[in-house]
């Protein structure tokens, strides 16, 4: 002890400046905190001011009895056999559309991913190939910046109410997203074996198949099921357009105020989502891909060389679980059944009528024109969109802060952490309730939340923000809960061994990294939320989505082009700023 105390203090240079860093001053820390607070508070204050202008009525009192009637029937869902048959059929259609759309997205993703990845090219590709890759990258960014619901609306004007509309609306934006993820995945595969095969004279495709497929198969499979899970949610959402499935039935029942049917359909949507959700989560666990944050967080949470990433990339051990093998075998027959059940025919794509209508649509879309009211109307819609996204994220973060700590699976700590049975059971019950609530929030499409919100609130930013916030809260809550499960607890355990109380140790050791994860995912979901404002706008909330729906309804296609361009610009700007902020926040 005395030896330790007598040791000469470490010189300031060795502790701080020696490592090339200037020590942070207290003033700098305070300034940084104030800036952070301002970045959070100022947009929320501005968005609230925009959403709730002074002197305007927000609550539509005439709608309150409707809301009461809706919730009054929650315990009396429609259960007559004819209607239940209809629900089962609609659920089948939803699954079929989602499955076919996902397979289409995977095909695009696989091809696009190979073209975009660096590993697939032996040397630096020649300039024409580089140009094509750049062009493809831009096209994919543009395609995924348009929401699947907007794609569906555009396809409806060419193909009519054809099942192909739902499939294409899923395939295109999901395919663009998948291509980006697959390209990153392929580039993460160690290049040694590929180089070895190429230098032994293998054909490029054979060498790629031999080296990339076995290595990335576990990740490809789990990502395929994650995409399927998202596709089921999106297909329900597409019901607004009228292409069939549970979503359409839900919209019809809502519009005809058949609340008993609404609850039956909500139950069916929840059941379907829960089943697919559980399947997908189980697969990811078996594949050693710990959480869906792997896909949703843009691969930013993990150290690429870290042991978990290594394990995920290797797909060792549990990746050969019977569940994973069974899932792999079910893919092809499942797709065939879905294809037959969906009644999709590709003939519609090449028919003379489609060609004629596509030509006319493209003619009509160009040149773009400003909406009625000109630039002020357009900029007002852009600001409404941003305000809606900011408020939606505030709602989502509030839900996450309440639910995620409860929905996080508790991990066994040190041996001194043995908790008595009764509190453990209570904790387990809370866990189930929190998980179930998050599932309900994310399974009910935001359009339905918006329709419900519009029963009691006048159209505007607020109902849209509320609807999106509830939906996003369901997703963000799960993302953050799963991410928190992977927070390193060694520091907490070390504190426990040093005699610190459990609560204090958890607070000190796990809250800072957890906060960082919450901020990262909040920023990431904000980028998505901006894109999804179109969805609630389409059912009458506000922002660019509402203008888009109004102009599509009266076939003012030049204005639609301008609105799509504005949406793209807003999404791209948000993505660039969000990415910068996320990068700046990296530890």
């Amino acid at each position, binding site marked *: 002890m005395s030896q330790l105390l007598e040791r000469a203090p470490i010189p300031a240079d060795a502790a701080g400046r020696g490592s090339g860093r200037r020590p942070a001053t207290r003033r700098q820390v305070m300034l940084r905190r104030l800036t952070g607070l301002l970045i959070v508070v100022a947009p929320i204050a501005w968005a609230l001011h925009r959403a709730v202008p002074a002197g305007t009525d927000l609550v539509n009192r005439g709608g309150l009895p409707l809301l009461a009637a809706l919730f009054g029937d929650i315990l009396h869902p429609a259960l007559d056999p004819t209607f239940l048959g209809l629900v089962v059929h609609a659920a089948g259609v939803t699954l079929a559309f989602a499955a076919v759309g996902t397979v289409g997205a995977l095909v695009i993703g696989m091809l696009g991913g190979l073209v975009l990845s660096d590993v697939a090219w032996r040397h630096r590709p020649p300039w024409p190939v580089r140009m094509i890759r750049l062009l493809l990258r831009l096209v994919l960014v543009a395609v995924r910046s348009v929401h699947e619901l907007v794609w569906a609306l555009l396809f409806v004007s060419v193909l009519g109410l054809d099942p192909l509309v739902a499939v294409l609306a899923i395939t295109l934006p999901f395919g663009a997203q998948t291509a980006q993820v697959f390209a990153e995945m392929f580039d993460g595969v160690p290049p*040694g*074996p590929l180089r070895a095969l*190429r*230098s032994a*004279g293998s*054909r490029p495709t*054979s060498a790629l198949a*031999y080296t990339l497929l076995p290595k990335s198969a576990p990740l490809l499979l789990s990502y395929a099921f994650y995409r399927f899970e998202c596709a089921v949610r999106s297909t329900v959402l597409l019901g607004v357009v009228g292409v069939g499935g549970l979503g359409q039935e839900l919209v019809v029942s809502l519009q005809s105020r058949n609340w008993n049917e609404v609850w039956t359909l909500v139950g069916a949507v929840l059941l379907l989502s829960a089943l697919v959700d559980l399947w997908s989560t189980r697969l990811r666990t078996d594949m050693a891909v710990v959480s869906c944050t792997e896909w949703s967080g843009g691969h930013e949470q993990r150290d690429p060389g870290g042991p978990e990433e290594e394990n995920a990339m290797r*797909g*060792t051990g549990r990746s050969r679980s019977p569940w994973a093998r069974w899932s792999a075998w079910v893919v092809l027959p499942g797709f065939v059944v879905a294809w037959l059940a969906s009644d999709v025919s590709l003939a519609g794509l090449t028919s003379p009528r489609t060609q004629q209508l596509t030509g006319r649509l493209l003619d009509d879309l160009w040149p773009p024109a400003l909406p009625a009211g000109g630039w002020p109307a357009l900029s007002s819609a852009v600001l409404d969109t941003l305000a809606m996204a900011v408020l939606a994220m505030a709602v989502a973060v509030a839900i996450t802060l309440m639910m995620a700590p409860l929905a996080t699976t508790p991990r066994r700590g040190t041996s001194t952490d043995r908790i008595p049975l009764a509190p453990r059971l209570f904790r387990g019950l809370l866990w189930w309730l929190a998980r179930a609530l998050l599932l309900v929030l994310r399974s009910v499409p935001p359009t339905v939340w918006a329709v419900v919100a519009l029963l009691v609130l006048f159209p505007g930013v607020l109902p849209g923000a509320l609807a999106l916030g509830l939906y996003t809260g369901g997703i963000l809550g799960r993302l953050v809960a799963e991410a928190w499960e992977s927070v390193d607890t060694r520091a907490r355990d070390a504190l426990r061994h040093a005699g610190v109380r459990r609560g204090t140790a958890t607070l000190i050791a796990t809250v800072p990294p957890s906060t960082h994860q919450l901020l990262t995912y909040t920023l990431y979901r904000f980028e998505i939320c901006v894109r999804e404002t179109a969805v609630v706008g389409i059912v009458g909330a506000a922002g660019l989505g509402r203008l888009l729906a109004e102009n599509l309804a009266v076939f003012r296609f030049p204005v639609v082009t301008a609105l799509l361009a504005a949406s793209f610009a807003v999404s791209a700007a948000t993505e660039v700023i969000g990415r910068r902020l996320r990068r700046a926040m990296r530890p």
Partner: protein
Amino acid sequence: MSSPTPVVKMSGVGRSFGGHRALDGVDLSVPAGERMALLGASGAGKSTLLSMLNGSLMASEGVLEVFGQVLADLSPSALRKLQCRIGTVNQRLDLIEQVRVLHNVNAGRLGTWSTTRALVSLIRSRADDEVRSALHNVGMGWALHERTERLSGGERQRVAIARLLVQQPDLILADEPVSSLDPARAAETLELLQAPARGSTLIISLHQPELARQYCTRAVGLREGRLVFDVPTAELDNARLADLYTLP
């Protein structure tokens, strides 16, 4: 009577990476059947030279011929055909981890297979006599359907050599195959390499002069990218080696 075409012929071959000259004006001729050791300190240019010989890297200057063909003049498909005759093995072994041993051995002849056959072979785990015999020759007959990631380091080395056996290359390039192995394992690996090298030309980069003397007939020394000696291994003396491994 004209002498047979050498397997490798290098005339003034150089290679730069940015401002760094990894290989500088190397002249070398390797006749068929030669057992040649490449010696030199780390960073001397041995790996660069071997990568250029198998067509993974192109020369920045000079002319490099393999089997009488100038590599820089070959079309991608002609280069691929030529590469089928060149087998490479290195310290990392570069085996595909997630597949069975059978697939890794099959990978040696992917160059002669169509893409369809390659894809089908990934799904159908059936081995022919050639694969069985290759694995048997390296003492790994039992491991045909074993998953590669479960093998030990020594077993993986044997699989890499079985891959060379089914490829049946005319030129074998071994890039420091024994640098991280204990003496007994190093000798065993070089013994195993003799089987695929039978009737072929072998160029092997080594850090152990005694192994060069034991398994090769010719030694070439590289220092800072330049060829500093080219002698029969019998003439490999300490003075040359000291010069080769002295830090600048």
